[in-house]
């Protein structure tokens, strides 16, 4: 008898499973923070969590923070420093083990667009986007510097595109060893965790392949929700459903039930 859970909860748990005990991890707000603190509550008690504002040693109190300077994350911190410290000294330096970022669009090489949507592409001369999004924020810095990073994104064809119209945060650029040209100290995206399954990069080409699907989805469904010709990794398999302990840990973190609405 499997407990009931939402797609958002499955995505958060699958993301949390990627985080290992003792790691130095940077979380953004929202889903990313829930996934991270779920990992801490469940299997990674010694995870060293921080935010890009340089908030250390804190766990959210009284619900999901509205932002990384929300008082809900500032009420039990052991250290407050700065963006330069967190994103510079600890992330861009290559010291941070893992970061979690979101995406409006992601492409086959794991490049992320959070800057804007240009109908018909930008063109040669830059023009304002038809839909302005949030910009790169700290995600570009995580994508360049963290040893690895995870991308969390809802699985829809308009989001999983052949080529993003603007690279806000670099994945593997045009694949293979393209990251090396820029000397990035970070290793690149290790997984894209979606509302339907998990994609991982091919070890050589760095193209993202299907590696796992959830109990409520299927490889076919995922391929249909992906605008590029999604290949499947050898060994791809169903992702284990959330255990009772996992769900209990996640729901303890998700005080306000934000993920149960999804």
């Amino acid at each position: 008898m499997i407990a009931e859970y939402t797609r958002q909860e499955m995505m958060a748990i699958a993301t949390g499973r990627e985080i290992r005990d003792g790691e130095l991890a940077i979380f953004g707000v929202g889903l990313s923070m829930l996934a991270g603190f779920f990992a801490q509550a469940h299997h990674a008690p010694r995870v060293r969590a921080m935010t890009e504002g340089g908030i250390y040693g804190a766990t959210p109190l009284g619900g999901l923070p509205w932002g990384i300077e929300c008082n809900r994350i500032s009420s039990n911190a052991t250290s407050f420093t700065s963006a330069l410290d967190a994103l510079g000294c600890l992330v861009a330096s290559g010291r941070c083990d893992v970061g979690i970022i979101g995406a409006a669009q992601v492409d086959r090489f794991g490049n992320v667009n959070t800057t804007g949507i240009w109908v018909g592409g930008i063109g040669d001369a830059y023009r304002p986007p038809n839909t302005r999004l949030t910009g790169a924020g700290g995600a570009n810095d995580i994508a360049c510097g963290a040893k690895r990073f995870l991308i969390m994104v809802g699985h829809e064809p308009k989001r999983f595109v052949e080529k993003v119209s603007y690279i806000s945060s670099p994945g593997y650029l045009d694949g293979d060893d393209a990251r090396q040209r820029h000397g990035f100290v970070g290793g690149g995206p290790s997984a894209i965790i979606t509302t339907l399954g998990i994609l991982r990069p091919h070890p050589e080409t760095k193209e993202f392949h299907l590696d796992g699907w959830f109990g409520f989805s299927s490889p076919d469904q995922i391929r249909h929700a992906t605008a590029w010709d999604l290949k499947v990794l050898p060994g791809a398999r169903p992702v284990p459903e959330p255990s009772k302990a996992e769900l209990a840990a996640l729901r303890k973190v998700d005080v306000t039930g934000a993920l149960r609405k999804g």
Partner: protein
Amino acid sequence: MSYSKLISLAEAVRRHTRDGQQYASGAALPVGSDAVVFGRELLRQGRRDLHAIFHCSTQQLNLLAAAGAVARVECGFSGLEVFGFANGLRRAVEEGRTVLEDYSNLSMALRLLGGAMNWPFVPATVNIGSDLQYRSAFAPDEHPARHKIPAVADPFSGREIGALSPLRPALAGIHVSLADPLGNAIMLGTEWSRFELSRAAQKVILVADAIVDTACMRQFPNLVRIPDVVVEAVVWWPFGAWPQASPGLYDADEEHMKSMNQALATEEGTAAYLKRFVEGYSDVPSYLDLIGRDRVRQLAQTSTAFLIDPFRRWLQTPAEITALSASCSPAGEVYR
């Protein structure tokens, strides 16, 4: 001998701002410490055509852009975190009224550091290889952009990295938790890039939620990350970051965060918002009335309130602050 730098918000904006100025603020995260009330006063005095430097978007930038006062903006994040897109800024950018140049959050901090150090450029191992480097809204015809984040070769290894342009804004309005009348300031919560901004800006005006006696600074000199030597003027304005949060003093006003952002999504909504929440007060008491005294009390019941406890004994009352401000003339009178 020491001199009070306390002046009114209206006077600070009158004296130190002008149309077309490079104005930096928002040196805190989208829901946190930002001198939002400074932006309201800029609009009350009709400033426009601003070149805004905001490390992150905040409700201040959202409001200034919605009101049409921002010609150009450079920032690292243009949303409002869990509150979603910054509708006013978004509308201004999509309509081409505000030109937004994109960087990352680290890059903005580095550019302020470079300004503080007066370096000609800052080494960048981030933003390179992405469209933050290749696309420039300020130089739309360059593709790839050649002057936004040009390449520079490391003379030790030959490796090519990026060079960021330093920022030296003409004016910064910086929100702090506590300031003394001399301009020494304590920030509670993440500094974000307020330390770097306070050194990069050519002129710094503090907007402090509370004023403390200088004895507080002498008890906690390691907390005084902005010393008086870099500060031009101090403005006392409680709830100056509202509807955003000020750790130790008040929580974000979630209801107003949402309703404000919703209003700024349209021109009509913006006009109504301006009428009520920009023009609708004349001083600190009527500003607090506008927020609602019950709301004010409730927001101050923050789980972070204990952070302010060590400083309570030095907090100055409104009457004391008025007396200190009155003693401040342009020639700088001695206050103690």
